[in-house]
């Protein structure tokens, strides 16, 4: 299973927040965060990030 993590210099632009079909992402002053329990591993956030701030890990 693929795990998506925002760990490479998020600029809090909100693109992934709007893109996530499951509302599994919230954004605060530190940047965007993926709530893993809500994530369905669809990868839409990964493609939506113009800053390539999201990493994918195989679990």
């Amino acid at each position, binding site marked *: 299973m693929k795990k998506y993590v925002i760990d*490479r210099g998020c*600029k809090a*632009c909100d693109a992934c927040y*709007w893109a996530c079909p499951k509302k599994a992402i919230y954004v605060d002053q530190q940047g965007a965060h993926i709530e893993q329990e809500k994530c369905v591993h669809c990868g839409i956030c990964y493609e939506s990030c113009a*800053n*390539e701030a999201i990493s994918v890990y195989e679990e």
Partner: protein
Amino acid sequence: MITLQKKNGRIIDPQREVPCLGEYDVVVVGGGMAGIGAAIASARKGCKTLLVERESALGGLATLGLVNIPLDFSAGIGKEMLANLDAVEGHWHRNSDPEKHKLILDRMVTGAGVDLLLVSHVVDAIVDKGRICGVVLENKTGRQAVLASRVVDASGDADAAFFAGCECMSGRKSDGKNQACSLEFRLGGVDWDKYNASELKKNDPSWLKLIEKAVAEGDMPYAIDNHLNWVTHVPGRPQHCGQDEISMCFAHSRNCRPLDAKDLTRMYLEGREQADILWKFIRKCVPGYENCYLIDTGTLLGVRESRRVVGEYVLTTLDFARAQQFDDVVCLTGHHYDLHNPDGPGNIKWAAETINGQTHYVSTHGQYGSWAPPGNAELSDGFGRKGKDFQRKTLPSSIPYRSLVPAKIDGLLVAGRCLSSEFMAQAGCRLVLTCLNMGQAAGTAAALSLKHDIQPRKVDRVELQHVLLKDGCDLGQKYWEIPGLEGELATLETSTRT
């Protein structure tokens, strides 16, 4: 040819007979993203459509300006465009290949049956009894007129609307200064993997500390900007071998007058000098860029804001922050206040607004940007809530149809960055796909107004929204109900920002 006649230091250009290039249902001025949306939508509705572009290719800033970052809600023609780009490997991570993008747009526009005229400047508007009925062009052939039943002004600078006599605004209220302008540039020979894995990308992604150090140590002679605005990874290039290509928004001209050819000239020269400084600084100081080289600078200067037409409704700064839901919504944006400082480095992500008689420093996301409000004042949300009560905007902002309809002149619509809006609202409504979606709405409205033989301001918003929804546009139906359209929304596929 005009015979030299002088009067009070001015040259007299008497009214001349000009050949008429043709008569169209809809003429779209400007082949940037808004113009493309308008022209394709209008032609697909059966209107004989002409698209006039002053440059040699379509796409405006998204291609010729190297703003290869097609952000915001992808829906309708925008979604189709991204799918077409995907099919030629010209798109990933919301970064596009500007050259493939040009070709895709050529094919989409001509494929829709639009007549296309490149390298032609619109230099005047033809007006009859308060209604625009054509434009005057200048190109290699000379000066020509084109007659049109409807004109969509997607010129970015509201040129046609201004020539037709529409009232326009420009710059911020306090001092009239426009947003800073940027000349983007591309670098090749980048080791993207190395940069992406670097401590810099992880801990200082906007290069704030790096730039501060570079200015202190003389690697950058002055703070061209205090942060890296964005860097995109151009798709379809060699990867994992140190030969990646990136596009960058870094250079900035301040105190800009983007409606003055002399100042535009100054900004192009300054932008190229800045690119020369910046790519050398980057090669010296940024991991992964040790062997990089400058490929090119943009053909088109990134003007973010100039004339904004005064429309039937002026989208306000607070409407934007409050995500005001308009009954006549035709377009969405998920963006925030995004002001590139008019007269100094950095950006500003708040607006001073009066709420209940008190001054608030309003933000959509709770971030200052580069500069804090006076006295480090606390930020408020669009409703004046502060501190722990501050609520980040969780709904997209809407653009109402009335913001695309100029208040004065009939037969005319606007789309793109010249929409009817206050300065800070416009700062959030200028992304690539926001402009394209606005264009689709304006082109569709032009076609409907012709179908019913009514003026654009009289177009029934429910019918317009119905058509836009059928054509895949996103009017926020996922987030709220649109009065008059409740029944049919359930059957429609909702679009996303991806």
